[in-house]
């Protein structure tokens, strides 16, 4: 079982890149929430959340993602999930959480979505026009 890790990079364009690995579950989600909180003051222009190395998300993990989405929505900022695996997508789909995040296949595509460049086709080819 992979240990949960998180890494936060504030980018020059005002967005925040968050890379998380392992299992975002009842044990790791509270830590993730605590580590993420300081990076949301002030609220970044957008959050690129790389979940490509996430193996599983439990309801505690979804709760943290929901809190993040709420905070960003309040400030008209966007959150993009990068590299959603089939297993994680299944959890997002069944919980209805897919509709509150944009999806992208990689960091560049996520960047385009956050900056609002490109219309419907850009979203489509970014990896899924979920929003």
């Amino acid at each position, binding site marked *: 079982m992979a240990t949960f890790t998180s890494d936060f990079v504030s980018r020059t364009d005002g967005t925040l890149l968050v890379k998380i690995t392992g299992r975002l579950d009842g044990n790791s989600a*509270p830590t993730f929430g605590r580590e993420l909180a300081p990076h949301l003051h002030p609220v970044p222009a957008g959050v690129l959340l790389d979940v490509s190395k996430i193996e*599983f998300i*439990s*309801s505690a993990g979804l709760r943290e993602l929901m809190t993040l989405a709420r905070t960003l929505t309040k400030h008209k900022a966007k959150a993009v999930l990068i590299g959603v695996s089939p297993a994680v997508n299944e959890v997002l789909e069944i919980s209805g959480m897919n509709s509150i995040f944009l999806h992208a296949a990689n960091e560049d595509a996520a960047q385009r979505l956050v900056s609002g460049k490109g219309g419907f086709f850009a979203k489509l080819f970014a990896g899924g026009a979920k929003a």
Partner: protein
Amino acid sequence: MIIPTEYQAGYAKAREIDPIVADHYMRHTMIGDPACDAVIDLLNTLPREKGYGWIERGIEDGPDAIPDAPELIRDFFADLEKPPAWFDHEATYAGGSAFFRNGEMFILAVTGAIMVEGFSTMMSKSFSITGRMVDGAVKRLQQNTRHIIEIMLPGGLDRQSDGWKLSLRTRLVHARVRNLLKHSDEWDTPAWGTPLSAAHISLAVCAFSALLLKRVGQLGVHLTTEERESFVHVWRYSGYLMGVQPDLDAATEADAMHLLAIGATCEPPPGMESIMLANAMINSSPLMVGLNEPAERQKWARWMHEVSRSLMGDEFADQLKYPPSRYRFISILTRIRWSNQIDQILRTMFPFIERKRHTHQFRRLLDISYYSDKGLRYTVPHHVHSEKDTQNEFR
């Protein structure tokens, strides 16, 4: 076979319906959870920090993570590492999907009926003596919601997942409470059987699976056969992890409903404890949904009493001393069903409503479920009475 005195009249009636299942049920009123009870007995002889440290690591990482633990504890975890042959991982998705699409109605049925009906058995004695339901009714409702969410998520019952761990933690908490009650002067085994008996654990699992499906049906939520079978399948595996004994393992919805019918016949009519617990749960439900103003709470509790009465029937509601119904012409269930039907039509016509509603349902579930910023923990009591339990974190 020893028949606890309080059960004798009901058992005689149940035997007339199905003597085999009635015998199984009665035998299990005198049994707890032999494997888990033995672990708790052993833990009682060890320094607390050491013993519960093994349990914590065993839940997280299995028997290989606790090479220094006694064989009994390692064997307990080893037996659970692999799911039973009948468990089909692929068969779990449909039930979860149906649950999350209709989360609010499922939780309404859990709060208004399942919890009340589940505790209207001799099980209420355990919670009444310990005070754990009345003192912590809100927390208990929130913990149950969390448990259901976790087991219903895809992969939620995989070995490393929270649904798996919560099921096992619940089993350990039950075993610990059973152990405390068995050694308490307040428990009357010849009259009441074993506290939190194997019969009651099975009955509770059947209530949360098959009976819950029936109750959400009354609220106008209709599931496909695949979804129903899947929902029962998920609960069956969670029940297995919670220590349901093989003779009372209900494999299908029909089996579970039959066991519930026989169990309910064996059980004595609801007593003072059941009345107290049922009303404590209904009156706590406004707090669970975040209503704190006295007027709002009162209004919500009145509404919940109505829903609960309509779901369970007037006879049972009267036994639980519910206030009389105020709806004379159109019952509250009819109103809820109409509302759900209109909702269903709108969702079919406008898919964006369905997407919004789906997310909203899940958000509501998260809002009313129990979380601790200390991670995945459940209370393992130190003292039989909850008010005397000061150090009640698991670790």
